[in-house]
């Protein structure tokens, strides 16, 4: 879960990372009650990057200009996102701009400190200026000093930079972050450092043990995406994180991911790897997936039997009148076999909006066959390639004819 800049800066303040005086603006008229003295910077609070280049940052000298700028910013979409709020912040003149981050290297399984003496809007993470220090053992301040020295900072700035990095690392560990970034960390004419902008992403799997952070999920307009299927999205429960950028994804209350893909074939599988493989095969056969739904035993679903997960998944898609075929690709062992027929039968009997053909691909390895209900719209396959071919043929009869 990504945080907005003002939320990230609240966390910075709490751990002692220097930030400027600032104030959140929820409506243009709030500008009149500003406590931060002019001149100020007004910053659009969106999740998307590239905000400065898109015109989402305005410098203003007085209230009249500020109100006008605020009205403009509230209506300015940045990568199709409208701002959740604005941040009014004291203007700051920097003599130098640094880049700092703490990220997780998933291959090494270790946190990594990143730093560059050439920070700011044009920073390049994969440049020769970007230095990194792997925190291979328990953290101590020397890792932070090592980064500062590698970045080429000198004198008292080494201590100041390492002080900020130490606090970023503490935040990273305490809040279960995926990453924390400060760009730029400004160095003022007096030599003091200041975090002018920051990004924080909290790990989705860890949100369940950070109730206060989970509340920072923003439910406003910022994550509404015009012209995508987002309007169909069900409310996202607070215990489950959203994807960091707006995508057409629903997470059901039970924790299943339903990803909208805009095509004709609905895909439901048990397991993320199987979802990805099935999606690839449908695309290779020139079908277009409508959605992908994983009813595998990930996360919150871990304790539910497959039968229950399939039933929940079918509930989640039963109102879908916009698709041409549903492809259920289910692989399960004998221990779960009894429930599968039992989960599918009531769905077939009761289908409301969903009247399209259903392709059921299941494994015939279980010793006794599952009793599937008789239904002319239900096509059962053991072979995956055949199931995919049938799904595409039913969704696009013309395409298949042409191909032949």
């Amino acid at each position, binding site marked *: 879960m990504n945080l907005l800049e003002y939320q990230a800066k609240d966390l910075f303040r709490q751990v002692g990372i220097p930030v400027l005086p600032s104030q959140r603006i929820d409506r243009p008229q709030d500008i009149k009650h500003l406590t931060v003295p002019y001149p100020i910077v007004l910053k659009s609070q969106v999740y998307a990057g590239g905000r400065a280049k898109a015109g989402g940052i305005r410098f203003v000298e007085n209230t009249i200009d500020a109100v006008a700028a605020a009205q403009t910013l509230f209506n300015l979409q940045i990568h199709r996102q409208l701002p959740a709020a604005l941040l009014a912040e004291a203007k700051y003149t920097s003599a130098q701009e640094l880049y700092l981050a703490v990220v997780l290297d998933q291959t090494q399984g270790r946190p990594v400190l990143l730093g560059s003496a050439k920070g700011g809007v044009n920073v390049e*993470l994969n440049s020769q200026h970007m230095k990194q220090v792997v925190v291979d053992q328990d953290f101590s301040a020397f890792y932070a000093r090592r980064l500062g020295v590698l970045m080429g900072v000198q004198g008292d700035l080494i201590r100041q930079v390492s002080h900020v990095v130490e606090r970023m690392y503490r935040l990273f560990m305490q809040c279960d972050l995926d990453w924390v970034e400060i760009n730029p960390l400004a160095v003022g004419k007096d030599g003091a450092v200041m975090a002018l902008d920051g990004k924080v992403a909290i790990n989705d799997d860890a949100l369940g043990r950070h109730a206060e952070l989970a509340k920072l999920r923003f439910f406003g307009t910022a994550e509404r995406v015009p012209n995508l299927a987002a309007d169909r999205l069900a409310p996202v429960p607070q215990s489950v994180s959203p994807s960091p950028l707006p995508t057409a994804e629903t997470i059901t209350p039970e924790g299943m991911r339903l990803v909208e893909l805009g095509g004709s074939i609905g895909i439901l599988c*048990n397991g993320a790897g199987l979802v990805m493989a099935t999606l*690839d095969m449908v695309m*290779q056969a020139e079908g277009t997936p409508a959605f992908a739904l994983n009813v595998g035993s990930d996360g919150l679903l871990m304790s539910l039997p497959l039968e229950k997960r399939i039933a929940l998944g079918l509930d989640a898609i039963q109102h879908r009148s916009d698709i041409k075929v549903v492809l259920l690709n289910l*692989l399960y062992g004998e221990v779960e076999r009894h429930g599968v027929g039992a989960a599918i039968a009531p769905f077939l009997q009761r289908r409301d909006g969903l009247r399209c053909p259903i392709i059921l691909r299941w494994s015939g390895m*279980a010793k006794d066959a599952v009793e599937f209900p008789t239904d002319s719209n239900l096509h059962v396959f053991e*072979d995956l390639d055949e199931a995919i071919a049938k799904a595409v043929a039913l969704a696009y009869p013309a395409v298949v004819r042409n191909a032949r």
Partner: protein
Amino acid sequence: MDGSLKFTAENKVLIQGITNSLGATYAPLMQAYGTQVVAGVEAGHRGERVGDIPVFDLVEHALEAVTDIDTTVIFSPPYEVLDAALEAIAAGIRQIILISSGVPPLDMVRLLRKAEQAETLIVGSDSPGIIIPGEVLLGTHPAEFYTPGNIGIISRSGTLTYEVALQLTQAGLGQSIAVSIGSDRVVGSSFQQWLQMLEEDEQTEAIVLIGSIGGDGEEVAARYVQEAIDKPVVAYLAGRTVPRDQPMGHAGAVIAPRLSGWEEAIGTPESKIAAFKAANIPLANRPSEIPGLLQNHLAQTLAEIAS
């Protein structure tokens, strides 16, 4: 830690989290398959039994009652996995398999630092574990998909591993072992460690590597195959058509951190396919192509040996 395979039917196995629904379901199945499941642990359940498996409050109590426990399979809820694994390490257990999904990555960081110091092998998290067909089951693989043979499967996925096993079994290619290294963002043992173990394993004649988008484990594995693996390796990659930045359910299968200025995304299918090509590893377009690629590759290798 040396590279040899230490998972056999001789392992004496502990189950942590044995009374929760997954643990209680799979512990007796593992036992029925031939695994020596000798004890379970769940605080507050001392004296109970799951099937005929005795349950203890603490790992150390299980070890007092049953000596020589060398492997533990952990089914505990995700936020309790770190603690359960640390308890096992403290008690001297050196092979740990994490079935639970959704373990926070920084818990895994703490666990891996400790495990390296204690020379402990961690498999997972979010893994169905290990199966040696016909011999031992350490996890939740559906055994009926597998048949004994000479193909080793190393995978990041769960059900996709079963899919590949099913295709191999139906093609008459049995398996020496199947291991899922786990789908969570940070996992213990790597593709590389398992490639090394299967290279040295006498039962394994060829290896199937099942990767997915996200991370750079496949790239590292491909380079390692080129440098150090003599046995035939074929690969399959899931998620080639998944939109960028779109999580598909694996915590580990997300492309690229979204930091400012990161020009090249990490974990893209293009990067992985290029790495497999550079290492001359045949890549299957779909699971059903894997048996054919293996048979070609095995025939080629035999011809090279003969000539």
